[in-house]
């Protein structure tokens, strides 16, 4: 048995050696590539970054930098016959088809991103703002470092503003949404109608307004390139956003009439156009983290054109759509915001300072429908668009001070307020930029409201994603402008403010519904395709 012992010793020796080796490798490997959530939420500096960068996320949700697609801006502008594009990208062609098709709420459809991208991104922003606020509640103090100044007051107020923007955009674009904040336990929220979501947004704006009132702090500008959010700016921004929320939530003219316009006036009077006016704006960095993708496409002549409906607004002699490949005679709008003169050798009219330029050639395939055609394109933000080499580097607005003025004007009219003041607010851009006939306090309510909606189509063109669509669904159907039925443009297509079968809000994205185990549904569509309610 000598040999057996030797073998045993050998085997045992090797076994011991290997077991010694076996204990050494550490299997608890960390992931060094991304910040661990638990650790990040315990760090004041990370909590500060989390809240601060959620503003960027929220901006992307609205203006479409996520995936570098102008979602939902372009599809909704097409649905509003504000912009036109015959290419299949970004849901523009599908949702612009005539007769209208039902919004394709399928998790298999590429166009499904029209709803899912902003939906996911805005809830991402909301989740980050909520996490930041709950960390603050747990006593974490946002600051650049352990010995640096405590930034709790401004980051908290800023987080409220972002909560409002996220819930607000959900309430404007979608039919339903989750209302979640820092106090909502994970997994407990349920879907609520858009009215409840909008109401929740208002409470967040109110909290932001209250938190900023009388304060003198500033949110670090690293989070908000292009503008500085002082306490005053945060408060006035929240006021303007709250006014927008109330005014844009309606899906029909009737709902619009039922809005508490007195409340709109209250908010707008403290908004961004009062005192020293400012635009809500960002400065791009080439689209790396900052850039307004909506404008990058909206002002790209070879892709997106101004819808002929808007061209007709500016020149009532124009048809509301093309009926053949032959263009109508060149439009000559009275409004100075439109290019004028004769085309150059290449067929362009690029009048400096004008917002809308002309190009005689149309890039679209006529087989896709001549109703997509237009010879006009928007150029006010062209330096931010893919038209230039150094795109998305300039500073561009997403809410103009003028928008707040128009909200004040509309609220004044709808509350039987000071019509002369309303007229002068409208005239700021109508006359100041468009050189059109001034309105007065004696102008008719129709003329004043119609002029407001005209300004909203022309002056606010390509600013905030969704704005044109929010307006078209709520516009008074009886409004006329220069003799045109601008509130009922599509009479001959069986619709009224929006073309027949155009969804008035988007459904909760299919993939989300599937995850929640709720049957997939959708809105819109006109014969002969499946038809669903518009809202």
């Amino acid at each position, binding site marked *: 048995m000598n*040999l*057996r012992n030797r*073998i*045993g010793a050998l*085997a045992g020796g*090797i*076994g011991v050696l290997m077991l010694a080796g*076996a*204990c050494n*490798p*550490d*299997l*608890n*490997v960390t992931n060094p*590539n*991304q*910040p661990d959530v638990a650790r990040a939420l315990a760090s004041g500096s990370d909590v500060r*970054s*989390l809240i601060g*960068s959620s503003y960027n996320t929220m901006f992307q949700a609205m203006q479409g930098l996520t995936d570098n697609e102008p979602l939902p801006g372009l599809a909704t502008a097409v649905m509003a016959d504000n912009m036109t594009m015959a290419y*299949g990208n970004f849901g523009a*062609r599908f949702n612009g*088809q005539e007769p209208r098709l039902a919004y394709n709420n*399928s*998790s*298999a*459809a*590429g166009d499904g*991103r029209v709803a899912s991208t902003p*939906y*996911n991104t805005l809830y*991402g922003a909301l989740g*980050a703002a*909520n*996490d930041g606020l709950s960390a603050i509640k747990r006593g974490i103090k946002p600051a650049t470092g352990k010995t640096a100044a405590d930034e709790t007051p401004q980051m908290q107020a800023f987080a409220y503003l972002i909560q409002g923007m996220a819930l607000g955009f959900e309430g404007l674009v979608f039919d339903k949404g989750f209302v979640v904040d820092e106090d909502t336990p994970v997994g*407990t929220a349920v879907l609520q109608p858009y009215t409840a979501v909008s109401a929740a947004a208002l409470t967040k704006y109110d909290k932001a307004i209250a938190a900023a009132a009388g304060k003198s702090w500033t949110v670090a500008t690293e989070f908000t390139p292009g503008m500085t959010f002082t306490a005053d700016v945060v408060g006035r921004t929240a006021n303007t956003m709250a006014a927008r929320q109330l005014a844009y939530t309606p899906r029909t003219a009737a709902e619009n009439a039922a809005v508490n316009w007195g409340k709109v006036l209250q908010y707008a009077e403290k908004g961004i156009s009062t005192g020293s006016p400012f635009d809500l704006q960002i400065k791009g960095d080439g689209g*790396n*983290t900052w850039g307004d993708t909506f404008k990058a496409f909206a002002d*790209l*002549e*070879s892709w997106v054109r101004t819808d002929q409906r808007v061209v007709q607004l500016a020149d009532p002699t124009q048809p509301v759509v093309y009926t053949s*490949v*032959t263009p109508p005679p060149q439009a000559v709008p009275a409004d100075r915001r439109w290019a004028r003169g004769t085309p150059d050798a*290449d067929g362009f009219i690029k009048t400096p300072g004008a917002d809308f330029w002309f190009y*005689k*050639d*149309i*890039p679209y*395939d*006529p*087989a896709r429908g001549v109703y997509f055609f237009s*010879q006009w394109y928007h150029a006010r933000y062209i330096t931010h668009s893919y038209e230039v*080499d*150094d795109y998305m580097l300039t500073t561009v607005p997403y809410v103009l001070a003028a928008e707040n003025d128009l909200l004040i004007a509309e609220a004044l009219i709808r509350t039987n307020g000071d019509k002369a003041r309303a007229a002068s607010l409208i005239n700021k851009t109508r006359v100041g930029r468009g050189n059109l006939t001034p309105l007065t306090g004696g102008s008719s309510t129709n003329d004043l409201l119609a002029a407001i909606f005209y300004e909203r189509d022309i002056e606010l063109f390509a600013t905030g994603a969704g704005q044109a669509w929010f307006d078209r669904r709520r516009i008074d159907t009886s409004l006329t402008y220069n003799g045109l039925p601008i509130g009922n443009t599509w009479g001959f297509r069986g619709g009224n403010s929006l073309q027949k079968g155009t969804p008035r809000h988007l459904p909760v994205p299919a*993939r*989300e519904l599937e*995850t*929640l185990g709720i049957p997939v549904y959708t809105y819109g569509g006109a014969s*002969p395709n*499946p038809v669903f309610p518009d809202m």
Partner: protein
Amino acid sequence: MISFNRVGRLFAAGLALIASSAIASSAQAQTVITGRVTDAAGNGVPGVNIVIPTLGPGVGGNTKVDGTYTMTVPSSSVGQNFVITARRIGFAPVSRNITIGAAAATQNFQLSQEASKIDDVIVTGVAEATSAKNLTISVGHVGAAQLKDVPAISPASALAGKVAGVRVSFTQGQPGSTPAIRVRTSTNLGVGTQSPLIIIDGVIAQNGLADINGNDIETIEVLKGAASSSTYGSSAAAGVVSITTKRGKDSPEGKVSFLTRNEFGTASVEHYVPLLEHHPYQLNPDGSFVISGSGTRVLKADHYIDANFPAGTYRDQLKENLIDGRTVTNYAQIALRRDNTNFSTSFSRDTDRGILPLLRGFRRQNARLNLDQGLGSKADFSAALTYGISNNDQTPTSRAGSGSTFFSLLQAPPDVDLTYPNGPGTTKYSPVLPKAAAGGTARGNPLLDLAQRSYNDRRERIVAAFSARYRPFGWLTFDGNYGTDRLNQRETNFLDRGLVGSNTSTENETPGSLNLNTNNNQASNSLISALGNFTLGQLHSATRATYQYEEERNNNFNTLASTLKVASVPDLQAGDPTTLNANSTIQTIRTINGNVVQNLNYGDRYLVQLVGRRDASSLFGSANRRANYYGLSGAWRISEDFKIPGFQELKIRAAKGTAGLRPNFEYQYETYSVFAGTLSKNTVGNKNLEPALQTETEVGLNATFLNRFDLEYVKSDRHTEGAFLLVPLSLAQAGGFTAQYQNAARIGGRTFEGSLNARVIERQNLSYNFTLTAERSRQKIDQLNRAAFRVGSTSQNQNVFYYRNGEQLGVIYGQRWARSIAELGDNPLNAGVDLNAKYEVNDDGYVVLKGTRGKTTERPIAYVDSKGNNNVKIGDVNPDYTFGLANTLRFAGFTVYGLLDGTRGGQIYNFTRQWMYQDRRHAFLDQTGKPAENKKALDYYSIGFYNALEPNSEFVEDGSYVKLRELSLSYNFGQSLLNSMRFLGVGRSVKVALIGRNLKTWTNYSGFDPESSSNGDFNFRIDGFRYPSFRQLTGQIEIGF
């Protein structure tokens, strides 16, 4: 810190088992037997094991390099009769009776090499090298004989059609791409996650097969699933492909042998996508197009695509722009065997240009060095080193997907010269195609990017294995191995500042961009194992215990300057600092495992294998760091017990085992995404994540009958528990987290596979044999712990598959166009509608609105079921069966070898055609030659079927095909001719051959190639602007001496 006691205990138990076999081995030596073992040519055969089985493992010896051996027999055996056996792997063992005398005796043996396929020797998944006859598990095998006629382009393609149950598919055909391999059925639901574990000369290869030269392969062994791959534990559920490169062991003793093989040829497309040769536009009396005021062509009122292009203006853009690319392979091998040293080295150079113009294609150089060195009589040392360096300028855009070269080429207007689209003297390859060209300019000029972009993907790969073997006793062997796989990859993607831009309707100058990425992967595995065997009477036992440590470190660094400030400087310093972007990742992965394999063989009749394995890995969630696996298999060689007329061999076998799949690195972590310093939420962590666990049961039968046929038939049933899924969460409910990786699915698979090898004619000057393999697999999602979801390959959002509980894997969902008026009645919205008054069926068999036939308003109508759902099953990618048929015919010096393979049934989603319907480029839209009443307006296709790219039944096509995958006609120069080439020295051979690869495909599929799948996954047969695989026709000359 993880305690790894159990792995240690397992290993120690194995060692104890090995040690116990020493009981039988103590003896005192007396009589000496010597002799020499030679092969048929009279050369000594080293490494032959000489044993007298009944005297136990202590009695015996091994032959030396010259074939001589010495063994001693105890004096107690004198006067007795014994069986003495000489055996060596690769040779048929020889036994004879001897009577032991008191004096020294001589016993010489002559061994013949085993040739028949069934006698192949298997080394993967077993305790010791085992003859295929004695296997209890399924191991696919491709040997030198099957590889020599048509050297494989890559190791994976060498498997195509040759091993039952193994499918190989070229997802992308571009040169340098590696085909995807799937063994039996899917083990996971994610895209591209069915790849088997790859082992090259014992090294766990983490970086694929792209850098390995097919000429260097000696054998490939495939373990097909958990029933056979349990020894590989948590990384083997999808099977194991083990590749052994050529070594010098078969060279003649003391001689240096040279082999050179040079192959030259061309690559070309076989099947072109049919293009539309007519148009729907109005023409002027002079034959030119009518152009509208808005610069576009004017459609005819009927929108029929049936007008001829003005004479001489139509171009077939595919045939005009795709090229016949050159392919060259130079290969040289030197091998040497002398005394205790085997040595083999090779060098090869491959150039494969592919079919795209303006690119150089794929260029690779490989060097290999294999060395075996005996150290005294008890130890060996081996090294295997493969070094590959390749450059490839097939750019990301020349490969696949939207925006790719094939996308814009297939959609290019047919009446434009893409070299000078705006006429001679204008910008070459201009991105701005003439506005009036048919169908607009949005897709750009496919040649521009090929001409302008400087792209290079440089891969440098080292696969090295070092092993030492120590045999303290005849029955005990220790092995120590260290293997490492290292990849250094550098990708340069440069577009110079000032090049012509393509983003607008007028030419402009681009700001340029520079993208530099490096990828550094370093994987190693170290193992130590002990093998003990003994023979007791008729019982032979082999036990192997192995302990292994694996480590992988991946570093990735990406930089992008999206705007350049300076022209012609491909350096990041030239980038605009405000647009510079950089990101990096680091991954460390560690795994420890131990296994014991026990093989028992009673009289070559009754065979049993037992496997136990334990893994611990950093990839498993922290709450589940360990996993156990087992394997149990047995076989009965019936023909050894009963003589069955006509049967030379009959074996039945059964096996059951488990194996796993490891989670990916990031699966378990709860993190924020961080991009350019901003944070956003990512996945919820999962501490409980386990490796997916596959359990497989297989039964099989092997038979050799009528002295000419070898048959294998296997049925496998498997299910994978806890397959990984990124389970989407309601972002809103989950506080912003998007998803979590979970063990969320159970996937079942059943495979029937078989192979038949027939030696039909075997004569001196004429032989013919064939091997037929066939497989039928079915796979199902048994359970899905999440909402049903849409899935597709990652490019273009082709989410045509719908995964849900109980659904078969690979079923295509989408809208189905109604073919009968009655079925429209299922739609609840049609309740009370007089359908016959409203609809009619057109000549294509589709339901359309009544009165729209032939008009621009004619559209197919989507079927809607009684629940209002229009998302229905429209196809299934799973073939009824797949098969391969390899034929070899030899006469005189000629050899004809042909390999056919194919599938019957199984559908493809032709996404390419759907896109082409929109742009009106596909020949199916052509209305010429149709009777007037059957003509369709283009809108029927470009709006109706195109359907905004929503998946629909129009684009589901039968993917059946038969492919002549390999064909060679070769001639080995006869001895008389070779005699005149004495300058080549002894052992000379000269072979010339004509070789074809993918020569001919018989199919009804309308795309480039029915062998389509996305992202290397057979469940995703979606054809979306892929680089087509091409045929190769080459001439080869091989000289050996």
